[in-house]
């Protein structure tokens, strides 16, 4: 094994520095136009990656972002760590008690905004694989079909929360319903996705029964006994150890240990991180300030590395297939908006507000991109599908606020 050299370190530090500064600059520019920050990060990746600089000046691109060697391995390690921490902070905001508290409307909305996009995505991928560029006369790959169903059913809590905050709907009943349903969507989607990754693992699979058993056992343990232990320990951690260093080290340490454990038992590190996040985030003892610091730390350092890295790997120009993008967009809008609207309506919400809920939950944002990236790395999807998912994530995030406004805010006028 070759040693990590002085030169490797210079290249790695330069790459990280360039990524952080450029993504902040572009992200801040986008913020002026109310674009999500993740969009700026993806644009930076596209600019720095094979799509633009890699085409104009391949030598420079290969030098700063090499595909092989020590720098590439180190950067991959950082990107993997970023995914784990992004899932941890996503879990921090999932409060199962809020879903229960919102009652029938949240459960009905959460369920139908999950099941209808899943069914439409699964059916399209399984029965019409050629639409997605698969050369087959028969039925599609079952793993791909489950993945597409899952990808279409996920919602992006960070984007949704931001949209609701900007629209001053955060504390409204519709806001809480959308947030609670998005939490439900995310939890179920990541559980299904972990199952899928475990079944598709190159390290050998455990079999359907054991995989489900391990996922449920880990989830149940962490959300009951694990959560109680965390709940009991947090007051001590936050008062007896250095602040905020103590709670940061312990929470991230536990997140990484859980991620390592789930990776070890072949159900992927993301599940461990996500569930650890829920166990911490649901604790009444986690100080709001600690929560904010964890979000700031991950969102402003690790998230840019991850989202820029996407553009560094994939040529968005070569892999942009209009038909696939169109179909993915159509399925995404149809499944989510119809499913969530139907669920909210069944839950007792008036039809116009129910449609607003549907568009609110339609924002896919960062969660979709994380899901797509892991699926791409696991060989579940092609680069064309991945590009279509990224486009869908951005388009649904951008259209969410105007559509909520159209169906909800106008009503109050």
């Amino acid at each position, binding site marked *: 094994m070759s040693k990590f050299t002085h030169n490797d370190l210079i290249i790695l530090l330069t790459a990280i520095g360039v990524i952080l500064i450029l993504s902040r600059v572009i*992200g801040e520019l986008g*913020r002026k136009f109310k674009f*999500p*920050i*993740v969009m700026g990060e993806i644009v930076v990746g596209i600019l720095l990656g094979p799509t633009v600089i890699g085409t104009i000046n391949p030598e420079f691109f290969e030098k700063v972002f090499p595909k092989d060697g020590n720098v590439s391995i180190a950067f991959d390690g950082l990107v993997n760590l970023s995914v784990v921490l992004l899932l941890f*902070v996503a879990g*921090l*905001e999932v*409060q*199962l*008690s*809020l879903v*229960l*508290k919102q*009652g029938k409307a949240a459960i009905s909305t959460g369920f139908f905004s999950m099941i209808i996009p899943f069914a439409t995505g699964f059916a399209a991928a399984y029965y019409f694989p050629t639409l997605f560029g698969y050369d087959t006369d028969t039925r599609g790959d079952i793993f791909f079909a489950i993945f597409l169903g899952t990808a279409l059913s996920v919602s992006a*809590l*960070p984007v949704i*929360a*931001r949209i*609701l*905050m900007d629209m001053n709907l*955060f*504390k409204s*009943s519709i806001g*809480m319903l959308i*947030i609670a349903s998005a939490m439900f969507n995310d939890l179920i989607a990541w559980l299904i996705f972990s199952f899928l990754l475990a079944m598709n693992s190159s390290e050998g699979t455990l079999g359907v029964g054991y995989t489900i058993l391990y996922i449920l056992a880990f989830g149940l343990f962490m*959300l*009951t006994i694990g959560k109680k232990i965390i709940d009991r320990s947090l007051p001590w951690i936050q008062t007896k150890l250095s602040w905020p260093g103590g709670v940061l080290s312990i929470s991230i340490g536990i997140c990484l240990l859980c991620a390592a454990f789930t990776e070890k038992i072949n159900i992927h590190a993301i599940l461990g991180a996500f569930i650890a996040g829920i166990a911490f985030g*649901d604790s*009444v003892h986690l100080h*709001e300030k600690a*929560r*904010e610091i964890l*979000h*700031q730390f991950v*969102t*402003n350092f690790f*998230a840019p590395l991850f989202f820029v890295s996407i553009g560094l790997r994939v040529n968005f120009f070569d892999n942009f297939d209009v038909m696939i993008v169109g179909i993915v967009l159509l399925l995404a809008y149809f499944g989510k908006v119809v499913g969530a609207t139907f669920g909210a309506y069944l839950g007792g919400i008036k039809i116009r507000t129910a449609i607003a809920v549907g568009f609110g939950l339609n924002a896919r944002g960062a969660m979709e991109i994380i899901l797509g990236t892991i699926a791409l790395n696991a060989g579940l999807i092609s680069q064309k599908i991945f590009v279509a998912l990224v486009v869908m994530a951005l388009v649904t995030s951008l259209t969410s606020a105007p559509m909520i406004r159209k169906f909800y805010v106008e009503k109050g006028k």
Partner: protein
Amino acid sequence: MIMEFDLNKLKKRPSYPFETIAVGLAFSPRMESILAEAKKIADACGSKLVLIHVGTKTKEKEKSLGDILFRNNIEERKVKIIWTEGDVVDMILKLCKLNIVDLLILGALEKENIIKFYLGSVARTISRKAKCSVLLMTESSTSEHSKRKVIVNAGTDHLKTIHSINTAFYFAKHIGLKEVTLVHEVHVPALAMAMAESSSAPEVTKIKKDFSEEETNKLHSMISKCDIGSLKINEKIIKGKPGYAIRQYAETKKADLLVINSPDMHLTFFDRIFTHDIEYILADLPCNLLIVHSRV
């Protein structure tokens, strides 16, 4: 037929005045102090008193109850005593409906053992299901009524709250209290996440300030609709998870009574596992607890 008639009478019945107060008798060592407190409240509110025991009626129990009533100046002929057998929770709930009870008083431990809590103890199960207001008494305060600290959960986003506040004011005035503290819990899930990536420092400060001002205004607006009378009202806005935050506040302030809304839905085992709202309070009672069932 009788049941149907009584249920109709219960519908939309206001949460106060307390015309009928029932007391669940468990023949525990604390029964006498609970009865003494119930008598004080009934005298202050001009209420009829109904005493309910679900269990075998024995001579010892009859004598013990008679002695307690005598020692506390409760005339047996002026109270209705119901002896019955069956499932304790079901029978008490049924008898409360049949007797159009406005307030049910029960003794409760501050904290149940973990198995009993998750499976559901009698007092806590009744308080989750009752169709009337319930006063869970953890202790009989020896201090004067007028000196007792009462904290009311004034969650401004709930229709029931105004009824709970008015009931608390009614109760406070009748037992001679001078002041009541209204506490409003503020909890905005996913706020940290929403602000993390693209909010400047002044924006974060403004968002937090706006939220705080909005809640203060809502609380003022709600108080203006209540019948305060001569009571002194203290206001407090606290941050934290609903139920837990006010439980902690009541404990810290050494409150004598915490007043909250009745639950909005049928609470199950899962609500105790993924604890929220009233379940945080029932898990570890900080003081006596009045759950106001506003029947709206």
